[in-house]
Every structure is written in structure tokens, then in C-alpha cells.
């Protein structure tokens, strides 16, 4: 008997919350609202699904769309050897989402990176500062409206305390 796909299970369990499912190129994807992210992650983390690893977190900027940003989470279950992708759309005006740091420790840095590059605010993050860029960097470099060769202002030399 073929194992039931995780997207189908989720669709049955949360018919109102799952907005869309797809499996382009064989990657199982669910699209949800941002309020549901933490609950869904907790649900997926538990047995028997056991998506215990946050494999990756990326943000995509769809400049020109009504809802501009999209957060993409990849979860991985070692016991079932299965990956699932969660997508959450975020509008530019209200660029906030729940932090996953209570569940996964590597979410700390991954979310700092997304904050650094796109300016997404993660609510509940213990230490949301830039990760790669320096303090005093202006703008968010991976946004589509940030020019490739933009120059940054020279930052003043730090004073001795």
C-alpha cells in the first residue's frame, strides 16, 4: 500500500487552514496563513510525522505582487525520510511572522539572515539583529528593489568607550 502523502493528511486534518497544496517537481508543498505556522510546525514535529529538522528557511521577494513576500520553510523527517515545504505569504505593510526559535534552535540564525536580507520581523525572536551585514547598513540587500551595485554610506569610526 502506498503511504499517504503528508499534504493529503494535512488537508484532511485542517481543511480550512490549508490554503493550497501542490507537488511541482515532486516537492510536497502546503500554503498556509501566517497565524497557523507555529501550530502547524508543532503538529508536524510530533510523532508519527516527526519532521524534527528545520532544513532550510528562505524568503522570496515577489516585487509587484499584491502580497509581496513569501517565506519558504523546508522541514525534514529523519525517521520517515520525507521533506515538506511550507509557504507563507507576507504583505509589505505588515512584515511580521512568528519566530520558530522555540521549536528549532537553528531558526535563530536563519531568521536573523532573513531579517538582515529582507527586513522580515520575527515575533518572539530572542536576538533579532543583522547577521551578515554590519550595524549601520542601510536597506535590505536581497530585496528586488535594492540595486545590484548600490553604494553604502561610509560608517563613522567607532568611538572608544
Amino acid at each position, binding site marked *: 500500500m502506498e503511504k499517504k502523502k503528508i499534504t493529503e493528511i494535512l488537508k484532511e486534518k485542517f481543511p480550512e487552514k490549508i490554503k493550497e497544496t501542490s507537488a511541482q517537481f515532486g516537492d510536497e508543498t502546503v500554503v498556509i496563513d501566517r497565524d497557523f505556522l507555529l501550530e502547524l510546525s508543532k503538529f508536524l514535529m510530533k510523532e508519527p510525522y516527526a519532521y*524534527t529538522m*528545520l532544513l532550510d528557511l*528562505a524568503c522570496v*521577494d515577489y516585487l509587484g505582487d499584491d502580497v509581496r513576500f513569501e517565506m519558504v520553510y523546508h522541514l525534514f523527517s529523519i525517521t520517515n525520510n520525507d521533506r515538506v515545504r511550507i509557504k507563507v505569504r507576507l504583505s509589505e505593510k505588515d512584515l511580521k511572522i512568528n519566530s520558530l526559535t522555540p521549536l528549532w*534552535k*537553528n531558526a535563530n540564525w536563519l531568521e536573523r539572515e532573513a531579517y538582515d536580507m529582507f527586513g522580515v520581523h520575527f515575533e518572539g525572536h530572542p*536576538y533579532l539583529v543583522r*547577521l*551578515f551585514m554590519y550595524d549601520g547598513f542601510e536597506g535590505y540587500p536581497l530585496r528586488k528593489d535594492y540595486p*545590484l551595485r548600490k553604494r553604502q554610506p561610509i560608517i563613522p569610526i567607532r568611538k572608544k568607550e
Partner: protein
Amino acid sequence: MTYRIQKEAKKESMLINMGPSHPAMHGTIRIMLELDGERVLNAELEVGYLHRGFEKTCEHKTYFNLLPYTDRLNYVSPLINNLGYVMTMEKMLGIEAPERAQFIRVIMSELSRVSDHLTALAAMTMECGAFTAFLYYIQAREEIWKVIEQTTGARMTTSYIRIGGVRADLHPEIDPLLDKAIAVNRALLKDCHGLLDKNKIWLNRTKDVAVVSPEMAINYGFTGPCLRASGVSYDVRKAHPYCTYDQVRFEIPLGDNGDNFDRYMVRMKEMEQSLKIIEQARKKVPLSPPSVLTDGIEPAEAIKASRVKKTEAKITLSPNLEGSEKEVYPRILTKGKKYIVPPKEDTYTNIEGLINHFKFFMGGHGIRPQKGDVYFSVEGGSGEVGYYIVSDGTDKPYRLHLRGPCFHIVAALEEMIRGHYIADIIPTFGGLNMIGGELDR
């Protein structure tokens, strides 16, 4: 800006910077330490010194042009980075490389894995004072790189694995070099086991230092040798076999404690397995017939002749193109002119070839996958190298995100060194195999 550690530090403890330019912080990283004597109470990492905007750059390059940038991610195993990117694209385009190319890819990525582990262990041992072991490791790595250089033409920035296959066939004289590389590495493994396994200084710095439990490793998203040292059996080569990894036999070595010593041991054992894979894979790729480069007519003559009528004669290619003649193409590259660079013989001597060449390289043409997004990963030297690519149907990626394995692993360093001595930081950091190019992107 005041750092978290400055705010949280106790009044009586001492704050000290390790790095960014510290000989042991290879790859430029800064560790801020809160110390009580020699004991680390707290630590904060600052990364990003090597941030070059890899992802932003890729968004402005075509799918074909961005391949060399992937070399520069994990610069001790560039072939695996190439492979990860290329396989992601192949998944998106729905193409597959010929079997011979698949085995060449397996050989190349295993060679890279060995060189990656050798570099990691060389740095780790040297910083603990084992300079002999360092020299042994680097000498063995040299032999690996000779093999890689012979076939790919470069030692580090190879760009050898291409969408649809590989750039050139294996060098006709690869056998003696590969034999030597395998023999040297086997001897090295034996020597280094002898030098280090029961060495008291080494054991003191590695045994039961920076123990990572399986739960913590998974929670931090560890992959690769660091995860397996904690006793979790997960290897992308076994879990989601790609290329022809399902046709070779190998084992996944595991550690049981998750300390520095296990990370060292897993790497040593993995190299043994990699050498075994190379031996099996090379049996499946019988050497190609000798190159036809030497007995053709000169390119200039061929071009001249082609102006009058179509030439069928063989052409002497530049030695830089060795192993990528038109006849070799079906063996090492997929069919379909949409995805591969047309053979140079055609480009210069007939109009169809020239058109194909322009169609491939012209802006707005070339490789154009369908709309959508895809994730694919391969097993890199320090863990799962994954690419998440969003395509909008044009010839440039809309978004390319790299899942660098050491990003997740280095994120755990703060917690791993807490409570240990300063001297323990060095082997712990070395055992993580932090690669700046991949971490900072």
C-alpha cells in the same frame, strides 16, 4: 552597537575577542567570549566577514553563467557544489545525464569529499600541535588534487560538472594518478590512525569535549559528519540516492558520543568508504579511447574550408578542450541542444552550429526552465548542500537560496563551547569544518 554578550556579561568576568583575524579562526569569524579564568561562560559569534552577496549575484546571472560562482562556496570541495546546483537544475528541467557522466560525477564528488575531510582534519590537528599529521594530510590532498586537475583543468575553481553532464571526459591517463592517490590516501589513513588514535594530547582535547546529543544535533539542523558523529544515521547519498550512488556499495560510519573525537573518527572512516566508492565507480567507467585531438586539421583551416562547403574532417582542438570533442558528447552530456553548449567544431564550421551557439548564449534565450520552485540537495563534505531555486520562466533565476551545511553547524558553536576551556575551542571549531565561503555566502 552593543552586543548581547556585553549586556549580559557579569561584572567580574572578562570579555575577550577571538578573531576575526586569529590563526585558528580560519575563514574569518569572530568569537566574543565571556571568561571566568580560562573557562568559557558565554560566547557570541559574529559572522559575515566573507559575505560577497552570492545569492544577489546569481539573480543577475544566467543559469549557465552562475556556475563558476558555486565553485567559490565551499572552496575545498567545489565539485560537490557544482553537482548540487547542476542536479537542482536538472530536476527542474527534467533531464538526466548519461550513465557514464553519472559515474564520473560520483568519482569526482568522492574525490572532493576526501579532500574536504583531509583539509578539515589537517586544520584541526595542526591547531592542536600535531604538525606531522597536518603535513601528511596535506600531502595526501595534493595527490587528490592532481587527479582533479588533470581531468578538470583546475585545482579548486573547477566548474567541471555542467547542466546535462560533465564538461569533458576523464583524462585518458587518469589511471596511474588515481592509483597513486588512492594508495597514498590509504597509507595516510593508516599513519594518522597510528599517530592520533591513542595520542594522549589529542585525546585530552577531543574526548568528551563539546558533546552534541542526537536531539541537539537534529534540532540545530546538523547534517553530514557532524550529525553522524552524534549517532544519527542520515546521509543524502543513502536517503535520497542521486547520480548512481544506488549502484555502489558503501557504509555510513557512525559515532556514538558526539564529541570532537567522534567527529574526527567519522571523517576518517568516511574517507575509507569514499575510496571504496571511487574504486567501484571507476570499474564502471572504462577509460575512453585515446583522444583524437592530435590527428585533425587546424581550426583556422577548418574555418576557411567551411566557408566554401561543409567540412566533415576532424579538427584539432585546443588542449583546454581536451575530452570535450564532438564524438565524446553523447557519452558525457545529455541530448537536446537547449541545455548544453554546442560542440566547438560545429560552432566554427557550420551555420546550424553557430545558430545553436548564439541561441544558447544570447540574453533572454539559453536555458529557460518552466515557472516554479525546486529544492534539491546532495551530500557535501560537511553536510547537506541544498539549493532552493525559484524560476520565473526567464533565463535568470528569480531567487536562488543555498542551504549551506556549515551555517547550521556553526550556529551551534556558542552552545558547544559553553563551559569548556579556551583551548577546547580550537579543536571544536576545527571539527566543525567551517568554510567561510559557504557560511557567509
